[in-house]
């Protein structure tokens, strides 16, 4: 396992500072989108459902409500397309993976804020 970490380290170019966050937190992720040869930045804002994996394979699943429809996106945290991650709100949840949020809507889907 250690040797794998060394191997992953070898590929790191510049260490992008990323804030620490976990399930229940509300984040907005700015990521680059390529359209033809134009590049623009889109922001996806939602609640973190889970943080999965470690090292260069770490991903985060973010869920947001788009109108009445729940939308989830999985972002690889080490992808060069990720421009910036901003934590908007820290949430107070009891588990590491809050899948139960998928079944909740409206007032039930609220998450208590965690005071820092």
């Amino acid at each position, binding site marked *: 396992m250690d040797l794998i970490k060394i191997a992953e380290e*070898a590929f790191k170019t510049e260490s992008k500072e990323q804030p620490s966050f976990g399930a229940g937190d509300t984040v907005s992720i700015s990521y680059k989108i390529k359209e033809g040869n134009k590049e623009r930045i889109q922001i996806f804002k939602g609640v973190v459902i889970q943080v999965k994996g470690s090292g260069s394979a770490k991903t985060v699943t973010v869920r947001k409500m788009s109108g009445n429809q729940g939308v989830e996106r999985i972002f690889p945290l080490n*992808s060069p397309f990720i421009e910036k991650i901003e934590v908007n709100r820290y949430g107070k949840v009891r588990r590491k993976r809050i899948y139960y949020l998928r079944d909740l809507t409206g007032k039930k889907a609220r998450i208590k804020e965690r005071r820092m």
Partner: protein
Amino acid sequence: MPGLIGKKIGMTSVFSADGKNIPCTVIEAGPCLVTQVKTVETDGYEAVQLAFDEKREKSTSKAEAGHFKKAGVTPKRSVVEFKGFEQELNLGDEVTVDIFAEDSFVDVTGTSKGKGFQGVVKRHGFAGVGGATHGQHNRLRAPGSIGAASYPARVFKGMRMAGRMGGDRVMIESLKVLKVVPESNLIIVKGSVPGAKGSYVIVEM
């Protein structure tokens, strides 16, 4: 081809500059020591025998111990012969991962994971028999007919059937070298490599 003996450490993935997620395998290759130099005069062909990974004196047979002693190296677990080294190698010399260049291509040989006794669908890629419904009984993954009737009145040799799968020597050719880390004797290649984690592989140029 010149190469090294290595150990498969495991797989991970890295992002390329253009944002592609590339699967890669980490191999701890070498340092290998030369235990025998074969020449045209003595053996009829040119080759170099390399040895890798420390082994206890206790678990070394006397014949092996003598062979390693002659080369002046400690007993090793894996011994493989290579051809075509450019530089002059003598007994006891060390060959390190430096011989590989980044962005070059290597072939990796290993022993594939054993799968046990498997049927024809998994072992040979047969399609099985149609669907599970419409009166189908219990022949879903059966091989079907294995030959004709009174002529030839036998099953031909080499007919693909169920049996032991895996555990074979497999070579994966033309894997791209993504990175070489000489400090930790690591070589990182694109794609997968046969065998389980911790198994020995041969990395050749």
